[in-house]
């Protein structure tokens, strides 16, 4: 029981340790969430109010985007 508990606790760190190493350099679009200085991988915003039909990041190229995550609760 104790051994199983210790293994469960250790599992997340093992997963992190096994995660592929990220390449550095500002020009490479990378796997996983972008850090400050990284190019953000292509994605689409969800259903939108007040938009103009653009959902993909690439369609906003040429304009800076300020994203502010919030909640109604």
């Amino acid at each position, binding site marked *: 029981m104790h051994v199983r508990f210790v293994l469960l606790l250790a599992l997340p760190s093992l997963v992190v340790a096994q995660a592929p190493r990220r390449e550095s350099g500002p020009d490479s679009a990378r796997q996983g969430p972008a850090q400050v200085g*990284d190019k953000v991988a292509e994605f689409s*915003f*969800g259903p*939108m109010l007040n938009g103009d039909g653009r959902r993909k990041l*690439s369609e*906003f190229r040429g304009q800076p*985007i300020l994203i502010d995550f919030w909640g109604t609760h």
Partner: protein
Amino acid sequence: MPQAIEHDLDYRDRGLVVVLPEVQGATLQSLPSFLFKVFPKLEARVVRGGGVPIVMGRGIPYSALIGVDGTLLWAGHPSSGGKERDACIEAELKKVATGWGESLAAKKVRAQLYGKQDLAEAKKLIDALPDDPDAERQALQGELAVAHAWRVRAVQALRDEARFVESKQAAQALKKSVAGEPEWETEATQLLADFDAEAMTKELAAAKKVDVVLRAVRGKKVKLDVAERRLRAVAKSAAGTAAGTRAEQLADALAAADKKR
């Protein structure tokens, strides 16, 4: 959120896009009444759900700035790093106006494409570029194609949401941006001509009335119950039109917002 709304109002004319993802499970149907009640000034894009592939903090509120070329420039709590973030925004808005890139040619093209929004001039500049080993010309052609495609789609997307005034404005802006490029100009002229049809004239007339009420709500120049009544009147007089249906839906949202007070 309040800061982002102010940033939207302050910087949108210079090219800043503000996107507000709601990440606590609200629906697009429930959001308008909440927004009318809590953030009546809001005109920025509101999105349902997160899914933005950037490093996240421990919760909300959380804010991030993505630059003109898709680089994550800043991320953190909205109330932290204000000066640093605003300096980044200013620097990016300068890039919008003057263009950016490793070569002077790329900078010139982007200044036309994004700063002046002159797609025809950007195309001429790109066409005059030599084929280069760094594929700069190809990359710029790709950017131009994306910029043209979304502008064309925006006319229909706005129409689909019964936002006919904005749709017509998008068509006018498209026509202006492609003036001098015959093939694109023909397409833009046709898109704009569609607004002269009789059915579209009715839609536009109703949509203008809806926009007047929405502007009054955003400027807090009218009480929500009064705005609701005005929208119901628009819906009644424009029954059978898409703009009339939108007026009814917005009136419902205002009624729900007023009840929550």
